[in-house]
Each structure stands twice: as structure tokens, then as C-alpha cells.
């Protein structure tokens, strides 16, 4: 059921010719008691999916903004188990799909199977693990599949054609297309080859392709989104959320992606 919720969202976006806007926040940044307010704010601002980051002591895929958010969350004493419990409590009030973005170690410590069960109870649609490539995925994707949760896969600018085909074979939920060589965080612009890259993988893919890393403005979101099925914005939203600037978040979201309000009405 959980994975279907996300598939339905993408389907209704597609039917209206719209793009997905996936908003990332760090769970527990500002305290776990704020999570519900933050998630409802993202929904009201027009996000189509929420990507919820799980704080980790050594986030090697993340740039300075998300690293700092993770440190703040850890300082609040937030744990993966605590986040899943809070999500389970508030899930019925959130209409849009939720995916978790977590490094492998907190999941391994909890246990891959107990994690999948708790994530299912928390209504999670998908899981993104930036340090788990295809080669090591089975241990985690096995239990997640049993609970009907999608394990989201990555394609990057350095992925070869053969690799792209390998990743697409059996992809679930959506493909996370990394737009830069490097970590998360704002960029002034993108490689010229990016748009061709996005269009060619979108053409090859059976599931939607969403682009993320380095997208931090309304115009970038609109531009990048026009070459695939959606965009993921992280660091900029984390900054705005810290300032509780919901209008600022709203202003980031292009018209072309804004269906959530209609969908939830």
C-alpha cells in the first residue's frame, strides 16, 4: 500500500502534465515535536513528496548545510527508532507520500527487517540509501520489498550506459538522478550535458526520473524539472525551514509542479 501511494502521486502528476517537487528536510532538526508542523507546512506549500533525512554522524554524501542540520538533530537526541515512532503517530494527518533518506549504519543497527516493519507502520513509501549501491542492496531491499516499500536507486553523471541499464532493471518508485559530481548543496549552474543526460535516462526508464543535488532556486527547479519527471530540493529547504520561512519554501516551488494542493482537496 505504501509504495502505491507514491506511484499514484506520480501518476496523477503525469496525467496533468506536471512535475514532482520532492522537498527534503532533516528529521529532528528543530526537535522531533516540530516534525508534524514541518511536514504539514511542506504539504501546504505544494510539495508533492517529502524526503525525510535521518541524521547520521558521518554523512559522506552531504554538503555543509545538511551536515549541520544532521548535527543539530543528533544534538536533540533524535534516533531512527524515535523518528519512525513519531511518523507512525502522525502519518494519518500527512496526505503526500514520504520517503526516508538514510545512511546504512543506523538501519543495520536497528536490523534491516525490523526497520522495514517499523517503516511500514510509519506509512513510508520508499527508502533512499546513499551509501548502498545496487551491489549491496539485497540485504535492505529484501525486507523492504516484503513490506511493499520501494528502494530508490541512483543514477549519476558518471554512470556508464551499461550501468544505467543495470540500475533501471527492476527499479522501484523513482530513479534519483544526481545532477552534479559532488555532495548535496547549492550550485550556481549545471554541466551542459546534464539536460541531455536527464532526457536520455527519462526515455529509458519505466519509473519516473527525479533530479536532485544542487538545485536551490525556483528557476533551477523549473529548468531542471522540464527535462525529467521531477526535482528534489534539499539544502535550500533545510535553510528556509530552520528560519521557519514557509513562504520562502512556497516561492521555490514552480507552478509546473504545484498539484499537491489540488490533490489533497
Amino acid at each position, binding site marked *: 500500500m505504501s509504495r502505491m501511494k507514491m506511484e499514484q502521486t506520480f501518476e496523477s502528476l503525469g496525467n496533468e502534465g506536471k512535475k514532482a517537487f520532492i522537498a527534503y528536510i532533516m528529521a529532528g532538526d528543530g526537535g522531533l515535536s516540530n516534525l508534524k508542523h514541518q511536514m504539514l507546512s511542506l504539504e501546504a506549500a505544494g510539495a508533492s513528496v517529502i524526503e525525510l533525512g535521518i541524521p547520521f554522524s558521518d554523512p559522506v554524501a552531504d554538503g555543509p548545510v545538511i551536515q549541520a542540520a544532521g548535527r543539530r538533530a543528533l544534538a536533540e537526541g533524535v534516533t531512527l527508532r524515535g523518528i519512525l515512532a513519531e511518523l507512525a503517530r502522525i502519518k494519518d494527518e500527512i496526505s503526500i507520500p514520504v520517503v526516508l533518506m538514510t545512511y546504512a549504519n543506523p*538501519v543495520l543497527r536497528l536490523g534491516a527487517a525490523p526497520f522495514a516493519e517499523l517503516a511500514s507502520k510509519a506509512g513510508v513509501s520508499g527508502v533512499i540509501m546513499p551509501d548502498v*549501491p545496487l551491489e549491496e542492496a539485497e540485504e535492505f531491499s529484501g525486507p523492504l520489498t516484503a513490506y511493499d516499500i520501494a528502494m530508490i536507486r541512483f543514477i549519476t553523471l558518471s554512470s556508464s550506459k551499461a550501468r544505467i541499464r543495470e540500475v533501471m532493471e527492476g527499479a522501484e518508485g523513482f530513479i534519483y538522478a544526481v545532477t552534479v559530481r559532488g555532495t548535496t548543496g547549492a550550485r550556481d549552474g549545471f554541466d551542459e550535458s546534464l539536460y541531455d543526460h536527464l532526457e536520455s535516462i527519462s526515455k529509458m526508464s519505466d519509473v519516473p526520473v527525479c533530479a536532485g543535488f544542487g538545485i536551490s532556486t525556483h528557476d533551477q527547479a523549473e529548468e531542471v524539472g522540464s527535462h525529467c519527471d521531477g526535482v528534489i530540493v534539499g539544502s535550500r529547504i533545510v535553510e528556509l525551514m530552520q528560519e521557519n520561512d514557509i513562504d520562502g519554501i512556497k516561492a521555490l516551488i514552480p507552478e509546473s509542479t504545484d498539484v499537491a494542493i489540488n490533490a489533497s482537496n
Partner: protein
Amino acid sequence: MEQTYKQPNESGHYGDFGGRYVPETLMGAIKELEAEYKEAQHDEVFQQQLDHYLKDYVGRESPLYFAEELTAKAGGAKIYLKREDLNHTGAHKINNTIGQALLTRKMGKKKVVAETGAGQHGVATATVCALLKLECVIFMGKEDVKRQELNVFRMELLGAKVVSVDQGRGTLKDAVNEALRYWVANVEDTHYILGSVMGPHPFPQIVRDFQSVIGRETKEQILDKEGRLPDAVVACIGGGSNAMGMFHPFIDDKDVRLVGVEASGHGIESGQHAASLNEGHIGILHGSKMHLLQDEAGQVQEAYSISAGLDYPGIGPEHSYLKDIGRAEYAHVTDEEALEAFRSLSYTEGIIPALESAHAVFHAEKMAAEMSPDDILVICLSGRGDKDVAQIKAREEGREL
């Protein structure tokens, strides 16, 4: 004799450990590295170059020295020292950096990134980059930059750029995080010279193989001197590269005890230590599954040891495997005990050991005392202690560096 021990498997796993837990951006590079390394193993020109530099530049082979005075002091087994401290740059680290720098050149890459804790691996990397004209960036934790000022100067003298890392506690773990981030962003033209038997496959294997020259030489030398294999080999463990280099050629020789010595810092019960194999839980960090110091929620804990080279919360995955199958045993030694051995080896044998190696010396003396005079024990003396004397002097004077 055909080796029966064959690890890792095709996918880079050592039993339940190892693997390739890296961002997708790096998968291409580590698969390329794996292919290039396989080729290099059978490439005569590459092997000749490696042998040439190991012999004439590093100064191999390193002596296997019968430590008569230490043997008398311990009052048991005959103790030999494998003198890796006599290598160029003063430690075993260069066995690996010279090999990986040659690989970098073979892959057509012109730039190198590396992490360093105390600065030994950083200096060994900067050294070979100067030699082979590779551009070199070294990430080093802010605290370590302060504690090892002279090594920072050495690296800069050798032409490397040293970047101080202001994340976390500013030690080795944070330097590895930052080096990995840098590698993700620059992977097209940059090779990451990892300094220990850690990280994603094929790094643990590559570093082990380049370090195995330690164990291979030891085997030949002891057969030459004693006509038989030792009863035990002992080495200190941070990430575990000198130990793995010593152990690997002996794994099939079941009568040779393989003993790794971890740093227990202020003592296991204090919680301030670096004893990942003794106290860690199975975890995933920096590309590999291994024993890892972490809390109940899977957050990685800071390791502590007086010796910056052992101050790492993880451990090479092959050590996790050797422990799991019971082929190697892993002891631990505190700061105070290591300091005692640091002094005693200095005045007994006239050899000032690295603080890291002093951990192995302390435990080996204890073992030797319980063994018979007919027994033979080899200590891997992984590095010399010159780098540590300022820190120890300051400690004695009641200043902390």
C-alpha cells in the same frame, strides 16, 4: 605451496564483512580500480617498477632483527623485530603508497587525494607524489593538524596541499569523510590513496597485498635464521594495515598464532578507547562492513588512543573476518602500557618505537614471558618513534599537545 586461503570473494566480501558501500558516483571509479589492479598484478613492467622502488627508494628488504636484550628482559620466547621503522619515511605506510601511486600513473590519473591521522600516511603519500610528479591533496583533522604540526610542514615541503578538516572532533574519521567527499567531486581525474586495509573493495585487498611484503620477507628471513616458522606474529592495529601485511602470508600456516593488538586508550571500561574488534558492533562506515564503535542508535562513536595512528572507530574488514573464523586473536593495550613499552624498548634495544608499534611490543613481551625459550615470536615494528617524542616530552612536563 598453493594458498588455500582465498579472500575476498568476487564481490569484495570477506565472509559477512567488506563490500562496497559507496555513493553511486564512485562505483565506476572503484570498478575501474579493481580492473586496473587485476591487470597490474600480472603486468611485468608494473611489478618491476614496484620492486625497483621498494628496493632502491624505500630501502627494502627491512631487517628481521633478533632482539636479544628484549628477549632476556621478557624471559621467555625468542623475540624478533621486523624493522619497518627503517623504511624511508619511517614506517610501513610507504609500502602501500608507492604501489598505489604507480597504479595512479597506470590509470592515467594525475591527481591524488588522501586522508591522514597522525600524518604518517600523509607524509608517505606526499613523498611518492613528489617522486612520481602527482598533484596531491591531503585531508587532516583540525586537532591532528595542531598535534602534528611538523608532519604538516613535511607534507607541504614535499609539495602537497594540506586541508584542515573542521568537522566532528577534527580527527582521522572526519578526515576520511572529507577525503571521500572530495573524491566524489573529483573522481574523473583523481585517485584516492587510502592508507589502510579499509574502505570499499578493492582497497582492503590492494593495501593488504602491497603490505604483504612485510610477511613474505619475514617468512624467508626467519626460515633462513631459524630454519622454521615462528610460533606467533604480533602487530598493532588501527585500521590494520601493518598487521594484515604481516598476517596474510602466514594465514595458511595454522601453527603460527596471529595476534593483533588494539589500543584500549584509558581502558576499555572508561569508554575512551579504539578497540573496535573487542568492543564494536557490526556496522557500515567509509565503504565497508566491519566491527565499528557505535551507540545503540547506530551513530558512530569517536575512538580514542594516545596514538593518533590507532585512533579510528572501525577496522579493516578482513580483520573482522579473521576474528570471526577464529584464525587471528585480538588483544588490547592501554595508553600507559604502550608508554611503558615505548620507554623500555628505547633503553633495552636502543630502538625508539612509534607509539602505535609500542602497543604491539607491550603485548608481545607479555606473551613471550609465558612461552618457552624454544619458541619464536616476531613483532612487526611498524614505525619509528621520532614523530612521538615531542608529544611524550610535553606529556611528561604536564603539557598536552
